[in-house]
């Protein structure tokens, strides 16, 4: 799945149709998606022990899912 990184909490799934000034691209291929700022989403499984929340990070050629551990309130 291709997505656009918005911020660490938000991604936008690539639409089925993209447009520029001249062309319409339906079911766009990877190179077109990259050109419009969409990258493949690399998912990761949530760790089993502890409480985690999903976060996103962007690299040059992908968007990755990260799991950020939520601090236990009792420890605070």
């Amino acid at each position, binding site marked *: 799945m291709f997505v656009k990184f918005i911020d660490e909490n938000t991604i936008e799934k690539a639409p089925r*149709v993209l447009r520029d000034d*001249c*062309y319409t691209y*339906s*079911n766009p*291929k990877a190179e077109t998606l990259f050109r419009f700022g969409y990258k493949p989403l690399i998912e990761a499984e949530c760790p089993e022990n502890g409480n985690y929340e999903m976060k996103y990070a962007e690299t040059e050629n992908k968007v990755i899912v990260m799991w950020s551990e939520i601090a236990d309130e009792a420890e605070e």
Partner: protein
Amino acid sequence: MTIERSYHAMFAEATPMLAAVRVVGGQIKINLFSEKNTTDDEIEKEVNFSIQKGSATIKELLIGCSDAYSEGETLTVTLAETEGSISEEISTQSITIPTLTANEFERVSVTDNANANAIKVTGTVTIPAGASFMIYAVLTDETGSIAEKVNEIANKLEVTEVRTLTDTDVEITLENNVIFNCGGLTDLEIVLPASTTADFTCQVNFTSGATPDETSVTAPNTIVWLGDDIESDVFIPAANKRYSVMFYYDGVNFRGITQGV
């Protein structure tokens, strides 16, 4: 686009009339009501019309008066499915006649139903003294019968060459009277010719991929699409279909008519 003229009472109490017709492109305007008040006082006139629209879509009513109008009266638009003398009402909607400026038509949207092949418009309008009041129904039939349109274009196609393309990723510059036969495609790019003639026609055949989104299509924004698997005016091939796309020039734009089986 065809209009079925029927003088049977499609609704038991309605009297259908087809008083005036103008065809504008893919639209047709049908005069439902046209009355002139020849008195010195305002008069009330009953509106009671039905038309059989077939596959056409009712888009809107055009309402106009030769004098200013601000009564805000209501018309009822009933959609029905009729077969012979049997009529089954599908829905009704109330249309408030907007304030009218003298000699100007106002557009009032109507919500159609895919199952409806007949429309009835009823109500009462108060016509100012000495004024004329008119109501038109605007029908569109941009889709109509795809097969008929394809056949029409196919009849214009004087094939000079059938070109077979074996690649799965193709760029096709449309050529007049040429059929491009492709196999399974993952990528199709359509390029318009540098010049064209009024009777330009070209056909592109291909098979889409086995999974949704597998076949991408890149096409100029100026192509007007019509037919199967068109979403928001964009051709998005579905999976596992054999497509025949007829391209033709309508004098202004290139149009692509898609048929997928």
